């Protein structure tokens, strides 16, 4: 018998193929409605998945590395992912909600209390995927910093490892500080800070509220948070990583890392590299999936509609859920603990995952038949940490 796998699904637009919105089952005019997203996330929960992620960026999607393109034949536009996750939280009960929020142009204080609020609203199901924005055209939406041109393709197969670029290194250092500050703020209220002590008239015990006094290269934050400690204490931080620098970032700051191997051997090598940096981080592999009897045909038709073969940072799988289950279990033996599947087209490939793949894995005793915990940390087997300030007492 296999040990259980963790399964997440990455939601973005009509799916991860740029022409996915042209599938017959797609609802392209509904992409900017709450109902559309509610349908997807409740379906993911019906399939007992660990969590959904929601993509985001502070600029439009583009086929160009560092500029908006002029294409009108692909989905363009996205909601703020944290607010979208909050909108979905009351409609779901067990599934984790992991929005992307950028660390580059945002205020760490705002992001930290937004994710803490999501954790309160969802009863302990919040995560955060911090993401750097290296792109100059996004920087020009803020007009606060000059960004050197990135002439290399990001997030593409064969894309260069930008770890040596000093600008990119700074962005990751800043992201590290942003997550560090968020975690300090999440701990800045001890769990039992609210006392409502009528005789002394004190609502809180201020000895259990803490200034974080963070001073770094990029910003400083005094604290404490305005938001009391949330159900998970520390919401789950998940980072996407393709190379050494982001592996280091994930190992130092994240609870979960999404990696992009293209084979079991690569998976083994990446796991070894990440494990050298951290024994604890949960390692998930990303896969773009086209599923069903006609998976290859569907993908080929979408490629033709888009005028190009799908390009992705992650491996692309086409085939039946039986074969996918086999691949996941093979990669699991290489040290991968869970998978973040990126459906090529939704809702079709999502249905294949929630109905077909989960049943297939369950048949091999490799996936849950009911939610075994009420929080995302619980589902991932991560303990609820005590506030560092409480520990320091």
């Amino acid at each position, binding site marked *: 018998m296999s040990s259980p796998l963790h399964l997440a699904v990455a939601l973005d637009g009509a799916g991860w193929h740029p022409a996915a919105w042209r599938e017959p089952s797609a609802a392209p005019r509904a992409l900017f409605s709450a109902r559309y997203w509610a349908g997807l996330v409740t379906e993911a929960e019906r399939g007992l998945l660990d969590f959904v992620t929601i993509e985001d960026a502070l600029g439009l999607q583009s086929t160009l590395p560092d500029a908006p393109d002029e294409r009108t034949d692909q989905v363009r536009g996205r909601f703020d992912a944290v607010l979208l996750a909050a909108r979905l939280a009351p409609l779901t009960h067990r599934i984790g909600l992991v929005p992307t929020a950028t660390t580059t*142009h945002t205020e760490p204080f705002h992001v930290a209390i937004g994710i803490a609020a999501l954790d309160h609203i969802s009863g302990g199901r919040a995560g955060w995927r911090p993401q750097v924005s290296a792109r100059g055209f996004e920087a020009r939406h803020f*007009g606060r910093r000059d960004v050197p041109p990135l002439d290399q393709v990001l997030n593409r197969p064969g894309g260069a490892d930008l770890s040596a670029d000093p600008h990119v290194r700074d962005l990751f250092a800043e992201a590290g500080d942003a997550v560090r500050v968020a975690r300090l703020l999440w701990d800045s209220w001890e769990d039992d800070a609210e006392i409502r002590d009528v005789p002394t008239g004190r609502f809180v015990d201020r000895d259990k*509220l803490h200034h974080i006094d963070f001073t770094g290269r990029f910003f400083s934050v005094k604290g404490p948070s305005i938001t009391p400690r949330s159900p998970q204490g520390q919401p789950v931080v998940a980072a996407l990583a393709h190379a050494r620098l982001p592996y280091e970032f994930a190992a130092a700051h994240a609870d979960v890392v999404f990696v992009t191997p293209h084979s079991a051997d690569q998976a083994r090598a990446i796991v070894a590299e990440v494990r050298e940096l951290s024994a604890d981080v949960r390692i998930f592999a990303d896969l773009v999936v086209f599923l069903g009897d006609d998976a290859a045909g569907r993908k080929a038709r979408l490629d033709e509609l888009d005028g190009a073969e799908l390009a992705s940072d992650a491996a692309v799988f086409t085939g039946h859920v039986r074969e996918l289950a086999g691949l996941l279990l093979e990669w699991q033996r290489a040290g991968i603990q869970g998978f973040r599947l990126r459906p090529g087209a939704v809702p079709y490939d999502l249905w294949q995952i929630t109905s077909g793949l989960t049943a297939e894995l369950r048949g091999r005793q490799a996936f849950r038949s009911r939610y075994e915990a009420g929080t995302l940390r619980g589902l991932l087997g991560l303990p609820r940490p005590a506030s560092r300030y409480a520990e320091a007492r």
Partner: protein
Amino acid sequence: MSRRQVHLAAHFPGVNNTTVWADPRSGSQIDFASFTHLARTAERGKFDFFFLAEGLRLRELKGRIHDLDVVGRPESLTVLSALAAVTHRLGLAGTVNTTFNEPYELARRLSTLDHLSGGRAAWNVVTTSDAFTGENFRRGGFLDRADRYERAAEFVRLSRELWDSWQPDAVLGDQAAGHFLNEDAIGTVGHRGAHFTVEGRFTLPRSPQGHPIIIQAGDSAEGREFAAATADVIFTGHGSLEDGKRFYADVKSRLARYGREPHQLKIMPGVTFALGDTEEEAAENAADIRRRQVGPQTAIAFLEQVWGRDLSACDPDGPLPEIEPDLTAGVSQGRVAIKDRAAVAAKWRALAAEKGLTIRELVIEVTGRQTFVGTPRTVARLIDEHVQAGAADGFILVPHLTPGGLDEFVDRVVPLLQERGVFRTDYTGTTLREHLELA
């Protein structure tokens, strides 16, 4: 002739001494269930909107975190977005500061809320003055008063440019022809101003209301002018009849300068209320609430803010201290500063001497009172009278209990307003703009 219609909004009570957290009926200030209860009650009462304040730094007194009032709240827009899932018509208004946000990001969040709520979003535009709050942000404390309003005005102008930059019919989703977007439907924003330089493209289609509703809070000359130029609703403190009429006339008279009609800006004072089955019972309830809002420790804390000294040795049920205020030292941070503390101290001394008040009685006397006190019938009549007399277009109600503080008002006062023909019996529109008759 038809009577002017009353607009009503519900304020989620929180971080201030008006919230009686010690009441056994007082529930969590942070659980989502509390927000849901109050919002659903407001929607049951057919209110225009639900209002949520924000906090960006915990208040401090004498260098320590103020611990006597409710402390702690979740992030405003995140909560409002979740409330969009559990309400259907109610407007969702959040206070968000322009000093420590950036237009592209905030305009995008507000547009997201408008989309996800089906056109129910409102933004209460505020500025922050103090370096104290700035210590939580990259920008730090960096703007003087005039610049803050200038930045706020440019912030709102730029947000509107971003919201307008997509044509209403931009999303075609034409699968057969392969046009997800209409050609030329997304404009480019190129903004160069004193505070912001923003160029590029917005990431969201035009939202159901076009622009989320703009609320402005504040009472200074700059604030009134800013509201006349840009706001849809003004949130004020002018709850009394005569004061309200003066404010109302002044603000509405400023609109013509910006080519706007009086009905295009709704004036809604924030008010409190106390109800009873008889006038006597209501008055007793009002006095009881005031006494519980100003506990012994709170009374001393108020005095310390004015005196600038540690007065923890004083007896709250005794007379004012003999010691003179220390005007060189401020002891309070993160709350509205008291101007001219010497004059306030002198006034308080005179009042306490004249009426023979203890410290606690004095603070109860000077720190505001319930706006509307009486039987449900009296309160309905008073609200109606204020609106018909041109002292307000409606009110933002601030209950003293979370989450049930609005239940009685909705159950007992709203039906009487409806009976008087001055308040809707059901929503006639789906967007907040429609509720406010601004569509």
